[in-house]
């Protein structure tokens, strides 16, 4: 990234000096005739109306100007650092850039590296780290970049965070005043409204014009970002504001920040929903980004057990224990039997309740039975924008309740309990027993299915996941990433703690998984948890530099590369296109595969300072490699295990 270069005469402090030089030059021109033939002619002496300056005036105007100050004792960045620390921001992931050098220096020296700087080799990595961190820690961290070119790099990751409804505080440096910009890079790295390129996928943005303005906007940004529905926010920081001395420190005030209590649903609507659920024969709860805090899962378990009803978890967060008998996430056919469906904090409700065919003629039909009542609870629709279509297709519902899902669940559970008489308790217990039996059968079927191709090479994804679980099951584990459509963990593993899962990218923008997993690992580190993640090879190559950040900051994580040597989803799509046209189905590896040469991810990882294992092609080699990698993680750093796998 080009860095800001100091121009010879650019600062506010040079204003008077510049004026003096102009005066001196003018006086000199008045007394000195032109010396070159093509110079502009001097005005004829005889037409001068002002008197020629006397010797004292000439002497005064030609004295050398006072020297620039070479030191200062404060900077606006110091105050900004204090504000960021007042908000409890632990980390700021950055790719260093001159447009925020004032803040950077202040954090390092005035703040004694608080918030702690996390060095990233790409802005996309920095934002994704913040996304992964927030979903584990439950609060945002900051990210800083050049306001123009750096922000352009950051945009896709910000879009993922937006779609995933995750708070991230993004800061971009800018030089607002045109006369303060040095020639060259400072002009191409400045903008009138640098936030405009991210405004469609941020909740709020601002470009503060004073330090007090910054303080209040930083507090507002934090508040807006962390109020459900959450999302990324952006602040453009003027370089002069960061770098110059604080003109009047006594006038500055750090705002008092109070988090917003998430909105609970209307009590009347909750009562109606409870009545529908209690009177239903086959109620089903579907959820996606429900759990915001550790309370979220407990609240959903309480409601499910009260109703003894099925839960279908789209796993946008750690919403429900995988081995809970009411977890029916891999028995989605039961949606067709539901007479009441409660959808909580859903991302794509229509997609969940619809059977859609990706055929030559695209058709869809409801997965629900006629007459099924649909109730929604959540804040998803309370903040939408128009351009990007992440809101999904319209779904008809019978009762739409605005309210934070996690915060509203206890009231719903209590309302349901009040309506359950002894007769219903017995019926509910029978229903629960049936669901538990079906759940157990599903788990056993998954285990049986996992045996197919057990000793094959490339290694099946089921074998990979089983081998990994066997090595980490006794750790205080947290799995924070997966590859596209890799669901064996949720089919086979015992997820039961709130931090054992944190969802996926949100915007399905490739390049999320590796850096976001490392960000989640950063959050897990201080809690002493063992972080691991799976990720595709295609995703890995978007941001391999994230491994260096993990090594540099000693962020422990076991990262398993699900290496199918392809952008495999696209491989399948392309094959479908060729089959549709009746031609060339045997050539669809062109442009979709990552081979010839094969990438050696373990070597890449070692080159970036991490422990590397693989490529592993024989399933018998997995366990020993995992043991070595886990030892490296326990020693405090990242380890990458390259597993050559079957596609899905």
């Amino acid at each position, binding site marked *: 990234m080009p860095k800001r270069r100091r121009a010879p005469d650019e600062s506010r402090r040079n204003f008077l000096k510049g004026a003096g030089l102009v005066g001196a030059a003018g006086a000199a021109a008045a007394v000195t005739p032109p010396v070159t033939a093509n110079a502009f002619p001097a005005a004829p002496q005889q037409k001068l109306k002002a008197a020629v300056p006397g010797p004292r005036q000439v002497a005064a105007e030609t004295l050398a100007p006072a020297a620039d100050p070479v030191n200062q004792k404060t900077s606006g960045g110091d105050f900004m650092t204090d504000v960021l620390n007042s908000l409890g921001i632990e980390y700021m992931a950055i790719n260093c850039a001159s447009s925020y050098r004032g803040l950077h220096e202040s954090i390092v020296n005035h703040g004694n590296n608080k918030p702690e700087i996390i060095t990233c080799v790409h802005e996309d990595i920095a934002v994704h780290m913040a996304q992964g961190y927030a979903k584990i820690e439950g609060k945002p961290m900051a990210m800083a970049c050049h306001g123009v070119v750096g922000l352009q790099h950051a945009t896709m990751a910000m879009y993922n965070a937006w779609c995933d409804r995750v708070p991230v505080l993004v800061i971009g440096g800018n030089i607002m005043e045109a006369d303060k910009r040095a020639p060259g890079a400072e002009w191409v790295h400045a903008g009138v409204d640098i936030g405009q390129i991210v405004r469609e996928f941020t909740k709020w943005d601002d470009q503060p014009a004073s330090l007090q303005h910054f303080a209040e906007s930083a507090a507002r940004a934090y508040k807006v970002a962390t109020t459900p529905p959450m999302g990324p926010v952006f602040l453009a920081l003027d370089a002069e504001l960061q770098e110059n001395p604080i003109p009047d420190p006594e006038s500055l005030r750090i705002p008092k920040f109070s988090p917003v209590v998430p909105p609970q649903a209307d009590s009347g609507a909750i009562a109606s929903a409870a009545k529908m659920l209690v009177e239903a024969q086959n109620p089903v709860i579907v959820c996606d980004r429900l759990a915001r805090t550790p309370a979220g899962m407990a609240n959903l378990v309480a409601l499910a057990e009260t109703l003894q009803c099925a839960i279908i978890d789209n796993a946008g967060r750690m919403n429900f224990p995988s081995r809970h008998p009411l977890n029916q*996430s891999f028995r*989605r056919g039961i949606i067709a039997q539901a007479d009441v469906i409660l959808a909580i904090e859903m991302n*794509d409700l229509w997609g969940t309740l619809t059977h859609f065919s990706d055929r030559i003629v695209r058709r869809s039909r409801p997965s629900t039975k006629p007459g099924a009542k649909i109730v929604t609870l959540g804040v998803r629709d309370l903040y939408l924008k128009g351009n990007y279509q992440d809101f999904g297709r319209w779904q008809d519902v019978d009762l739409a309740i605005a309210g934070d899902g996690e915060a509203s669940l206890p009231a719903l559970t209590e309302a349901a309990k009040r309506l359950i008489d002894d007769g219903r308790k017995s019926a509910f217990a029978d229903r629960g027993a049936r669901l538990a039996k079906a759940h157990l059968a599903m788990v056993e079927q998954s*285990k049986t*299915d996992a045996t197919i*191709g057990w000793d094959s090479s490339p290694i099946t994804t089921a074998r990979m996941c089983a081998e990994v679980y066997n090595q980490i099951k006794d750790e205080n584990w947290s799995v924070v990433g997966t590859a596209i*459509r890799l669901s064996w963990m949720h089919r086979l593993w015992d997820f039961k703690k709130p931090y054992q899962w944190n969802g996926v990218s949100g915007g399905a923008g490739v390049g999320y998984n590796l850096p976001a997993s490392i960000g989640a690992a950063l959050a897990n580190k201080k809690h002493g948890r063992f972080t691991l993640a799976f990720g595709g090879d295609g995703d890995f190559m978007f941001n391999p530099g994230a491994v260096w950040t993990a090594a540099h900051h000693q962020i422990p994580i076991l990262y398993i590369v699900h290496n199918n040597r392809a952008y495999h989803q696209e491989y399948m799509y392309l094959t479908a296109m060729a089959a*549709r046209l009746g031609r060339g189905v045997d050539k669809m590896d062109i442009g979709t595969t990552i081979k010839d040469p094969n990438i050696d991810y373990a070597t890449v990882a070692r080159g970036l300072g991490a422990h590397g294992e693989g490529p592993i092609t024989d399933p018998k080699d997995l366990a020993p490699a995992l043991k070595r990698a886990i030892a490296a993680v326990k020693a405090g750093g990242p380890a990458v295990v390259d597993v050559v796998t079957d596609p899905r």
Partner: protein
Amino acid sequence: MTKFKRMAVTALAVAALGVGVAAAQDAPQGNATNGKRIYLADGCFTCHGRSGQGGAYNGPAPILAHTALPFDAFKNQLRNPSDDMPAYSGTVLSDQDIADIFAFVTALPGQGSAKDVAILNN
């Protein structure tokens, strides 16, 4: 999240296959070795796995290893598939190719006993 969606599709797809089957007929003679070659070259493995273990496309892709489907049902699914599977016409897969693929997948070992695999019982 789509990766967990439409688990019902598997059941529906398999059911549709069963319903669409006419009276079982003897499968034509197939060459499993050539079937494996076609299975890998023409992209069958991309959704159903090299071991026929199943996988996922837009939704789950059924297990083919040691399939119990009659040949006609298998062929029908290739020519007139249910759900999102693309149709493979005669221009890209001949009837003999299908017979060869069928020979290959029916010869693949199917599910084993999970109880015999210690690490599946954690």
